[in-house]
């Protein structure tokens, strides 16, 4: 039961956080200059986007849930199981970021979820 609660936070807060950060990154635009000074300037611009901080807060919650889960289960079980976020991520990207997700991508996400199910079953 405790595992399911932590898994819920890892997937829910983690995916929500990534969507917020992706939203902020899209607003900032593509990075072309990879020199340290330019990257620092980019980081400063990113720090002034509100969605970035919401994303960081949610990802922090997901991170501590991951730590708790890793204290109970093997890393070869925990990390693959968190791939369940793919389904949540694809739906979130389509709904909130208005990304066009092709049938092929949906098929890939479905196959990933099938793999996660097998990993979950391997625990027994």
């Amino acid at each position, binding site marked *: 039961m405790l595992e399911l609660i932590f898994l819920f936070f890892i997937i829910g807060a983690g995916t929500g956080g990534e969507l917020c950060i992706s939203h902020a990154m899209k607003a900032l635009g593509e990075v072309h200059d990879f020199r340290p000074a330019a990257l620092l300037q980019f980081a400063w611009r990113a720090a002034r986007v509100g969605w970035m901080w919401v994303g960081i807060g949610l990802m922090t919650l997901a991170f501590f849930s991951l730590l708790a889960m*890793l204290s109970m289960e*093997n890393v*070869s079980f925990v990390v693959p199981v968190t*791939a369940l976020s793919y389904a949540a991520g694809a739906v979130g990207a389509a709904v909130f970021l208005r990304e066009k997700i092709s049938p092929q991508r949906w*098929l*890939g996400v479905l196959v990933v979820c099938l*793999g996660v199910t097998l990993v979950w079953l391997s625990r027994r």
Partner: protein
Amino acid sequence: MSNSIKSRPGVHLKTFIFLLFIAFFAPVGNVMLSKGMKGIGSARTWEPAGFLHILVRILTSAYIWMGIACLLAFFVAYMLVLTWADYSYVQPASAFSYAVVAFLGFFLLNETVNLVRWSGIAVICLGVVIVGHTHPRTTEKS
């Protein structure tokens, strides 16, 4: 649709290089965190009164900090790649790290990885390959 992005030859190579960074730093970071948390003890036995003590032990663990450093490197690569590629492309494409983490868990942490788990990880990688054959970006450039 931005055809200039689709036809630009450098975008796929750049995406591939950043996905390699993601597939390296994420699993190594997770293995470090696992090693650190196993030394602290199971969350099943954590008492609310002892939470501060556990937090101190987490924040003073060298493995945890090395894991955080690796995950930060992963995070920077992930953020940068998201500025030109779709989230729904980057997220599944980075799933190769699931296979890497299982190998590291097996070889470095002596974890038992049975046939069903290896099969599950192989299926996850198959899903990654399917997603990898779609174009990185489908939305307009902002």
